[in-house]
Each structure stands twice: as C-alpha cells, then as structure tokens.
C-alpha cells in the first residue's frame, strides 16, 4: 500500500468511489469513464454523480444499451493506451459482454506475445438482497476469478474502495472491480491523499485466536459484526478480508488457518463451485495438520433467487447463520468459551 496520507474523513463507499474517479480523471487525460447512464443520469447507483458536469462528455461517456459493444470499445481503446473505466450497471449484465472480457481482454497480452496490454477497469456491483429477483441478484465473481489474465478485486470498505480503485486504474491489466449494492451507503474512515493498494494481498482486519472468518466484499461487513458479537461471548475471532480474488493471497489464508485452526468462509455466492470451495481447498492443502475441524462454508442456497422477501432472506446467508456456524465449529471442536475469553 502506497500512501501519502495527511488526515482522514468518514465517508460512504459511494463517495469514496466517486472521489477516486474524480481524482483519476483529473490526474490522467487518458482515463475516461464509459457505461450506461453514468453521465446525464449520474449512474444507476449515483457513483458517477457530478462527473459529467465536471469533465464533459468526452471523459464521461454515456452509452446505448450494448454491453458487448462498449466493453469491446473500451478494450480496443485500452490497446491504444487509453485507460477506460467501464461501469456495467450490475454484474448480471456482464454476461452480455463476457466474451469480450474473458476471450479478449484477459487473453490478448498472452496471446499476442506480450506486445499489448489492456489497462481496463470494469466496475460492477454484484449481490442479492434487494428483491431484484433471479436475473438481477447474482454473484458471478467466481467466474472471473477463475480466468488467467484478469485481476479481480472486491473491496469491503470505503478506504479499500479508494485504494483498490486507484490501484486498478493504474494497473496495466484488465481488472474486474467488484462492488456491492449493499455497500454503497456503508461509511468508513478514508485517509486523505493518494492511496494505492497492492492488488493480490488479503488483509487481516481483526486479529483473533479461536476461529477465522474469511470473506470479501459485503460479506466482510457481516463478518466483522459477527466477530464483535462473538467477542462479547468470549470468542476471539480473526477476520480475513480477501480483497483480491485473483490473484488470491493463499499465504494469508493459510497463515490464519494455522493460527486459529478453525475456519469459516462467509460468502454471498452460491455454495457449489463458489469462492469458498477454493478457500477450503487451499486451506486443506496448506494447513491440513493444523485444522481442528473441516473448513465450513456459509453461502447462498442454490436457487435462482426469488423476489419474495421471506424467500430471499431464507436463501441468503446472514449474520445469524454465520454466528450459528461459528458456534457449531467451536462446539464440534469442544471449544470452551470461558477459557478462551481468558477470564
């Protein structure tokens, strides 16, 4: 993390994104924003509010509904040295553009022998829980995390939103920058000045000794909440924020698993073949002899997400489920709270 902080402010995740986009647009003429409704409409989720007015239509480009076309245009412009920051309204619509992202942006550099790079950022929010029903509530980041040539980051806090977005824009490779509808209004302290995170590193957001919760993006907020609650119950919880899904910081994951010997992965994603599967496999490979119990996965029920609120709630993992599973893993391993609380 490169930082030149002087002070800090408490702002929302949305504002952190907005300010970072503004800063990068000001810094580098080659940076431009492109996407549906990001200009006149100011963004479906108002992330780009005010930027059209400030930078004009050349730098903030409203597009027709043509994800494949405008993502491809961003790619081609990046091949010529521009630094497009694409907004795709939600991750669900990336499917229209996925051939351009996966078969083109991700592969060009390798396939063309290193002669070209594609300095492209695709910002897109994922996640369910807003009653948007099956086609508008997905977490498909695991697909992108699977693809060599891409980088995939998923900040969980306003500070990281700033530092990772700055890093993503300055990175010469295509970066999928995962946001989350439920994070936009979350507030946090954000250091002033230029902040550049290192893509590819996880962070231990909270140190603990009894059990590790691993998560990313919105899930981290819940993990921290549950960790605080468990602390009150005499359990010392370590929280690891993956931050980068590709590259994946396996060492950080394994180190925490070795330390606490109990791990729960918390993800909004669907369980089978989700992010948690890779984390579990990694831990088993790296910390096999240290584990007191198998890694548990708390993930979404495997259904196209229903609209109806009670059904949606039942299908999505919550703080309550996470709390319960942590409790289960502790109980399964005969963990004694009093002792652990050190009293």
């Amino acid at each position, binding site marked *: 993390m490169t930082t030149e902080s002087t002070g800090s402010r408490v702002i929302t995740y949305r504002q952190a994104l907005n300010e970072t986009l503004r800063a990068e647009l000001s810094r580098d003429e080659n940076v431009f924003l492109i996407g549906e409704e990001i200009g006149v409409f100011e963004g479906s989720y108002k992330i780009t509010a005010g930027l059209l007015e400030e930078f004009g239509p050349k730098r903030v480009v409203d597009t027709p509904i043509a994800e494949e076309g405008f993502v491809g245009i961003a790619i081609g412009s990046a091949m010529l040295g521009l630094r497009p920051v694409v907004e795709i309204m939600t991750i669900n619509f990336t499917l229209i553009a996925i051939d351009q992202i996966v078969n083109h942006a991700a592969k060009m550099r390798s396939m063309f022998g290193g002669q070209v790079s594609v300095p492209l950022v695709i910002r897109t929010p994922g996640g369910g829980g807003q009653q948007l*029903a099956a086609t508008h509530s997905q977490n498909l980041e695991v697909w992108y995390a699977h693809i060599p040539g891409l980088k995939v980051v998923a900040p969980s806090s306003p500070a990281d939103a700033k530092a990772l977005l700055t890093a993503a824009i300055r990175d010469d490779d295509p970066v999928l920058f995962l946001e989350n509808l439920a994070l936009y209004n979350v507030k946090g302290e954000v250091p002033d000045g230029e902040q550049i995170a290192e893509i590819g590193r996880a962070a231990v957001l909270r140190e603990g000794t009894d059990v590790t919760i691993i998560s990313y993006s919105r899930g981290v907020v819940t993990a921290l909440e549950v960790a605080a609650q468990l602390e009150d119950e005499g359990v010392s919880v370590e929280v690891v924020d993956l931050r980068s899904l590709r590259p994946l910081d396996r060492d950080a994951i394994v180190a925490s698993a070795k330390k606490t010997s109990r791990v729960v992965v918390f993800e909004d994603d669907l369980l089978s073949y989700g992010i948690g599967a890779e984390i579990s496999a990694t831990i088993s490979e790296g910390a096999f002899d240290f584990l007191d119990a198998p890694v548990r996965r708390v993930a979404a*029920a495997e259904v196209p997400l229903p609209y109806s609120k009670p059904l949606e709630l039942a299908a999505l993992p919550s703080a309550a489920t996470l709390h319960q599973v942590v409790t289960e893993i502790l109980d399964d391993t005969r963990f004694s709270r009093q002792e652990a609380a050190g009293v």
Partner: protein
Amino acid sequence: MVNTKNPVKSGRSAPRPGDSAETLRTYYEQMSLVRAFELRASEMYARAKIGGYCHLNLGEEATVVGLMAALEPRDYLFTTYRDHGYAIVRGMNPDAVMAELFGKSTGVVGGRGGSMHMFDMDLRMLGGYGIVGGQIPPATGAAFAIHYRSEAGPKTEAVMCLLGDGTTNIGAFHESLNLAGLWDLPIVYVIINNGLGMGTPVDKASAEPDLYKRGSAYRIPGVRVDGDDPIAVRDAARDALKRARVERRPSIVEAMSFRLKGHSVVDPARYRSAADSAEAQKADPVPAFRAHLISAGVLTETGAEKIDAAAEARVDVAVAFADSSPNPTVDQLFAYVYATEVPNAPSAFPGDRVVALS
C-alpha cells in the same frame, strides 16, 4: 416500410367507423384500470409493500390496450419488465398481479418473480423479462416452434414480442431479427418507443433513430404508429400479426408514446427538461381518449367517471387481496428449480452442511 412520421398528436384518437361504442368503452375501461393500477403500485412501493425494481406503464396505456386488442388468445406474448398493464389486459387477475408485486404466494408466479416477471402459461403471456433484450431470442423461438408445428394460414398462432426503444441497440435484437427474417418466422416485434431508455434519448442511443427502419438490415418491414391511439396501435398490430400468420413474415411496429414518470418508481427523472415533461403530460393518452370518447358521444362524463371509479374499486380489491395473502413458505424455496427430479440436487439452506460429517 411505411412511415407515418411523428404522428400528429391532435385528433388522433378519434374513433373510426367499425368500432362499436361498446368496444371503445371497453378500451377505455382497460386504460383506466391500467392507470389506476400503476398509480396504486407506485403508492404501494412508497409504502414498502412492493420491493425491488418497479417499472410502470404510465403513458403507455393506449399502446397496452391497442396491442392486447390485436392479439388473439392463441397468440403468444413476450414483454419487457414494464409488464403490469399487459399482464392485466391480457387477462391476468389484477388481484394476482398485485399479489405478485407484494411477493405473495397468490401472485401470478407465486411471488418468485415480482414486478418484472409476470407470466401465465394459459394466457400465453410468456413472461416479463428483466435483462434488456433477453426476451427477444426466446420470443423468436416461440415463433420458431409455431413454424415447426404448423403451416401458415389466417388461423394459426403468432408471437408478439415487445421491446423498448433503447433495446434496439443490443446484439440479441440483431441476431433474432436476422433469424426471423431468414427463417420466415411468424412474429411481430413491437418497439415501444417512449423516447427514453432510462435517461438516454433515442437519438443518443440509435444511429438510426427512426426505429421502424431498423428492420431494413433484415428485409423486415416496419411501421410507426401513434402509441397514444389505441385504435391505431391495434390496427397496425393486427396487420403485422396477419402478415405473420399468412405470409410467415416478421415485421416491426414502432409505437410512439411518452413515459409519464421516471424509468422506475424510484427515479425522479431530474434529467428531463420541463418542456419534455410538459409535452409528455399533454399527450397523456388516458384523459385524451376519455375526452375523445365523450366528444364523440360514445361516453358521457358520468359514464367515464363511473369507469374510473370502478377501476379504483377494482384496484382496492386487488390491494386488499394482495395484502391479506400469505407469503410463500420457506420450505418451498427449492420447489421449482428443476422440472425433472434428479438425485443430489442441492437443497441446503445457508449454513447447512452439504454432506453429513460422519
């Protein structure tokens, strides 16, 4: 390719010879019902009875009614997410439509789909779709199935596929129209041109802003009609459906109307100029059609008031029904994932173990 240009906006809804007073009154009843329903939906959204996205047909009532009048019961309908009015006029019970918005088990799809996904197999309304353009290939496939199963003729089925102006710019539109043109499929693509895709005007989205001409790349003819005139819409759609049935040729109908409010209920539409909004309000097809029917002597003021009151009352009933309906039960979460049961299908709730730890 017929170009009726930007239809003249005055006098357009004058009843034509051949339509009985009863028919015209029915059209107005339907328009009034859709209007009342949509205003109430907006209100229910504000009161948090409805969640998610909610897109209304306000301003589109004449098009809704005209199109549904043209469509035969044997035909198939695919719509966008802006589907409440179509659902109701196609024949779904407003109670069940409102219940769907409320996410209740009595909703048309049991609360699974919400506002964007009205569906009724029996009514051959094969769904509202939330992915822009996503409905176009399946709708074209329904036409393919008709073509696969039957010979052309005036009594055969056809498909009507709705899409917005903004949706003509997506790849699925091109691939589908090319295939429909190539394979002579019985389908009518209705472009609901309300001038805007969210905040984007047509001429900032389409390099050919005369959207009825966009079939030219597939030798598909197109016609533009006044979407504020239910009769004009109906007649254009009927012609196009007839061509689909008899000639097995696809066509485009572009219906021009205004979106009276924001893109969805939460959009204040600040990006719209006062002039544009004023023009939209002035063109409002519901009062216009009402006034025309009155001035044509088809309807009296009191008759119209009665219709409007009945629509309100109908919507009251729908809301009461929706409100008192039960939620879907959580044990039914996995009920519809698969049609053919197979072993090992996932059924774990979050936090459940997916394998028994022995």
